[in-house]
Every structure is written in C-alpha cells, then in structure tokens.
C-alpha cells in the first residue's frame, strides 16, 4: 500500500519565549516581533506519525502551511525532518483569517495537490489552542475525522482503527480513508533532523501558492472570510489576593463558600 499523506504545519512563537509576547492594544493583536518561531510542537507529532507510516507502507509526505513568508522556515524544517515536499499558502489576502477561513484555504490547497489518503494535524496549536482547523478542514473536504488520536493501526483494505484519547480512557474508532486525524502528544516521540537531512532539505521542492493559484473564493479567505473577529484582547490579571476570614469555624466555612461562589459567578 502506498499512501500520500499531507501534514498541516503551523509556525508558532517559541514556547520558551512566551514571556516576551506583548499585546498590541491598538491593533488588538499579539505582538511576536523578535520572538523566534518554531513548528507548532503538536504538529511535529503529526509529521513523525506520517514519516512512520511512509516508512512502513511507502508513499509520500507533503507538508502544507498557511502563513507569512517567514513560515517558509517551518516548512524547511519539516523537509529536513523528512517530508518529501512542501507547500506554503502565502498571500496578503489570507491575512486575518480565523480558523474557518484558514481551514478553507488549506482545503483549497490540498484539493490542488490532488489525490491523498490521509491528512494529519496536531491536535491544537500552542498559540491559540482552538483545535478547530483540523475538523473544519475535514468538513470542507467532506472526509471523516478523528481528534485526540494516540494510536493509528491499518486494517486491510482502506480503513484504519484509531485510538482516540478521552478524558478518562480511550475509544477505538474505525475510519475509512481518506480521512483527517488530529494527533495528540502521546502518539509518538518526534525525531530530530540529521545533519545529512538538513543539508538535503534545500534541494527538496517547496511551492508557494497565492489565493488565485488555489482557486480560493475571495469572500471565503482572510479577514473577509472569517465569521469570527477578535473584538478585544486583554492581559490576564495574575495579581494574588489574600482575604482573611475570621470567626468561629462554621461561620468561616460558610463565608468561604459564599465568597468562592461570588468569585466564580462574577
């Protein structure tokens, strides 16, 4: 069995430098200027799983990302880790996209790529953490999807048995290919690129496609195509407050419950 696998990659700020992220009160965005960027760590698990499947069954692994020109670096890294080729969806009109517009753009790019058997994503991104893009992408492509995947096993024919992590335990799900799986951290241990692979990465193909290249409808992409808008962005108040409750134990307990209730509901 030979399988074409597509891995969705997002470039995110380096988690070690999160403390340097500031809020831009005027543009209502987070400012990542000067902060090193990396591949979204859960996406590394998706890439690793894709490489393991390719090693077992043969086929091709394509990394795809939507982002500004600098997102090229994340794809170069994916190529060094082992992806066969990469596509960057890069266009000013993609800017300001919410998860739905992002998923639509990725779906257009994936349709242009042609036949595929499996799409793998990280379960969520570490900078926004909605976990929505993967499932929305699957809906646009009209294929089944499973999230929080911690194990993938191939059945004969064209279906998979995947293990989906639940809050307390897991569920086994049979999925027909083509499908989209969003993988969770526990699925594998991502590999590091070797020096040989780093040096070969530059000779692998990376295509850069704009909105017109993928036949995207303008009112479905970027800010215009986003049904959700960020209306305000705030820094969380992390100041600790101390209150000392005095009185007999029963009274203190009652006061404490009331006070906690007040804090939760306000």
């Amino acid at each position, binding site marked *: 069995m030979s399988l074409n696998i597509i891995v969705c990659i997002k470039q995110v700020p380096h988690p070690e430098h999160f403390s340097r992220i500031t809020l831009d009160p005027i543009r209502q965005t987070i400012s990542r200027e000067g902060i090193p960027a990396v591949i979204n760590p859960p996406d590394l698990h998706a890439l690793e799983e894709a490489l393991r499947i390719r090693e077992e069954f043969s086929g091709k692994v394509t990394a795809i990302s939507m982002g500004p020109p600098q997102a090229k670096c994340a794809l170069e890294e994916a190529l060094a880790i082992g992806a066969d080729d990469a596509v960057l969806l890069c266009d000013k009109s993609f800017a300001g996209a919410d998860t739905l517009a992002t998923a639509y753009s990725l779906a257009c790019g994936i349709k242009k790529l042609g036949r595929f058997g499996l799409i793998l994503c990280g379960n969520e991104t570490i900078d926004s953490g909605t976990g929505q893009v993967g499932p929305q992408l699957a809906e646009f492509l009209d294929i089944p999807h499973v999230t929080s995947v911690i194990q993938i096993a191939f059945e004969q024919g064209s279906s998979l048995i995947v293990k989906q992590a639940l809050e307390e335990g897991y569920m086994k799900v049979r999925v027909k290919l083509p499908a989209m799986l969003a993988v969770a951290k526990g699925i594998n241990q991502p590999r590091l690129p070797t*020096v040989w692979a780093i040096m070969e990465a530059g000779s692998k193909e990376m295509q850069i496609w704009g909105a017109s290249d993928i036949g995207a409808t303008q009112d479905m992409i970027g800010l215009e195509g986003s049904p959700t808008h960020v209306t305000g962005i705030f820094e969380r108040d992390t100041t600790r407050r101390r209150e000392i409750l005095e009185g007999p134990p029963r009274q203190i307990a009652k006061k404490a419950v009331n006070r906690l209730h007040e804090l939760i509901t306000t």
Partner: protein
Amino acid sequence: MDFAPTREQEMLRDMVRAFAESELAPNALSFDEKGEFPFEALKKAAKLGLVGIINSKEYGGSDMGHLARMIMIEEISRVYPPLGFYFQTGQIGMYGLQNFGSDEQKKKYLPPLCQGDTVMAWALTEATGGSDASTLQTTAELVGDEYNVNGRKVFITAGETADVVGFVAKAGDGTNLLLVEKGTPGFTTPRREGRLGLGSIPVSELAFTNCRIPKENLVGQEGRGVRLALAGIGAVGRPGAAAVSLGIAQGAYEVTLRFAKERNLYGKPIVQLQAVQFALVNMNVEIEAARWLCYYTGWLLDQGKSPGEIGSDIARAKLYATDVANKVCLKAAEIMGGYGLIPEYQLVRRLRDALEMLPAAGAQDVQRVIIGGAIAR
C-alpha cells in the same frame, strides 16, 4: 562580508540544542558525579551525523564543515562540556585519517567512527611536554614489517576507551604518526588521571612496551609525524577547544541570568540592580566577541585555509574564548553567591570545566606565543 548563518547552520543549531537539552541536560550533574561518560548520547549524536561532521560522505561523514562543527560543539558544551570536549579531541584523529590516511585506513576506521560504533583518541603529549613536541621520548623502531614501539603518553582524552589511537613517536631522525588498536599486545592504559573538571571524560596514560605495530599503520609520510599531528590539532583540536570554551561561557551566562531574574533582594529581582546588570552586560558582550572569533576561524577553515596560514586566528579564538569562559564563570559565582557553589545550580561544574580548558589544545601562553610571533614578524 556576510555575517548571516546559512539556513542549514540555523537548523543544525536548533537540532543540536534540542538534542543537548533532551539527552544531556537532565543527567549532566550525575554524569560528572558518577564519572560516567555519556557514550549512549555519543552514539545518538553519531546517528544524527554530528560525530562525522567534518568527514566526507564517502566514509560515512556528514561533511557540513568547520563552522558547522564550531556551532555544534558550542551547543553541546553549552549544556554538557565533556561531550563537547570529546568532539574536540576525537575529531582530531578523524580529521587526521581523512586528510593524511591511506584509502585502506579511511575505509577501515572512518565509517564505524562516524557511526559512533568506535571511538578514536589522539596522543601527542608526554610527561616531558605537550606544547614542545620536539621533546618526544616514545620511539618507533622499524623491525622488518613492524614498528617496535616503546614509551608513554599522558593526558590522553578517551585513551582507555578508544578502539584506535593515533599517536606520534620518534622514528630515526624524524617522527611518525601511527595507529594502534585497543588490545594490541604491549599497549596498555595503566592509569586514569584524576581531574578537576570535565568530570566524566576518561583521561588516561598510555604505555607502549615492545608493542608491535604493522607498518601499514603509518599515517601519512614517514618522518612527518609531529607536523601532521600539529596540523590536526591546529585545524580541529584548537578551534574545537575554543568552541568548548564558548559553550561553557554561554551556559554559565544563561544560568546566571536566570538566577538573577529569580533571586529577589531589596524587594526586586537582582537583575534590576545596576551592579548585577553591568556584570551580565560584560558577560554578554564578551561572549558575543568570542563567538565571532570562533566562527571566523571555522569560516576560514571552510574557505580552505590551512591551519598554518591562519595559526594566529585560531590561537586568538582559543585564547580569548577560554579567558572569557573563566571570567564569566568566576563572575557568575560572585553574582550567585552561595548558591553558585552548590552543584545543583549547575555553575560549579562549568567553572571546573573552564579551568580545564586553560591548558587544553595548547596553554593560553602558547596561544600568545603564536599570536606574538605573527605580530612581531
């Protein structure tokens, strides 16, 4: 002038940093305390292509070059200097084989070395001296098709664990560079040296007693042993030592900066105190200056310059980076106060390692002699 690292060099740095943080950082202290060299990590590094980074692909190397090697050793030494130091010395031998060895020697020794399946040591120093190689007392007398070797070598990094050792011995009027394999009759490693720093790395004395070595174990031309050994030390050992020092300085600086941001005094983190800030600024500036001296050396070697042509550039990098490593570690100990001298705070081991770098790959004054010779000409 192009000061920008290539994309490949950036990715190499990220990869080595991730490797060092996951494979070395969690056990750095216990490696030193138990005196256990991380051979498993060395094997993993080899599979990533780090051990053969300046060896050709034909013999299993990854051939990324000298500047890439400097970055790699810096990043390893930022976390665990003894492994960086192993690269510093182990790769001298691999460079020697690559550049001066016969095809048979390259085919036999380089692939398992690049894969991390075997280890190589490089032995020049004797009890009578290291920097003055002309005082060698180890002899290799040609008897039929074999050399009969007698003598002793000291301070040999990885000597007792090496599967093959490249060493220099007097032969007639000249000197020969020879290879001896572990287990050869008459070749022993009688003593492991106790060391202040580079805790886990085995540093040994080597003894040759009527040790018979086949004639085909001669590396390069007859009579040019010292010259070849010094070329290896110049091109690989000394730049490697500079990169180890740079990594030590960077690691110590980061430990200190983190401490200064967490330690409160007079109601605020001590990093806000100008006296502490100025000390950290000096560290930061000096480390950056050392970094560029080191990278320049690697870049010159990648341009095809011979260690002879750029001897003073190499010496400058080793001299300065090692001075900076020692200065940074000492100042760090002052800033961190009592905590700085508690092993768990990860500064003490770096301070000890920095001291070990003073005589490594040519003492500091030997570097001054080299630079002095060039400027006084």
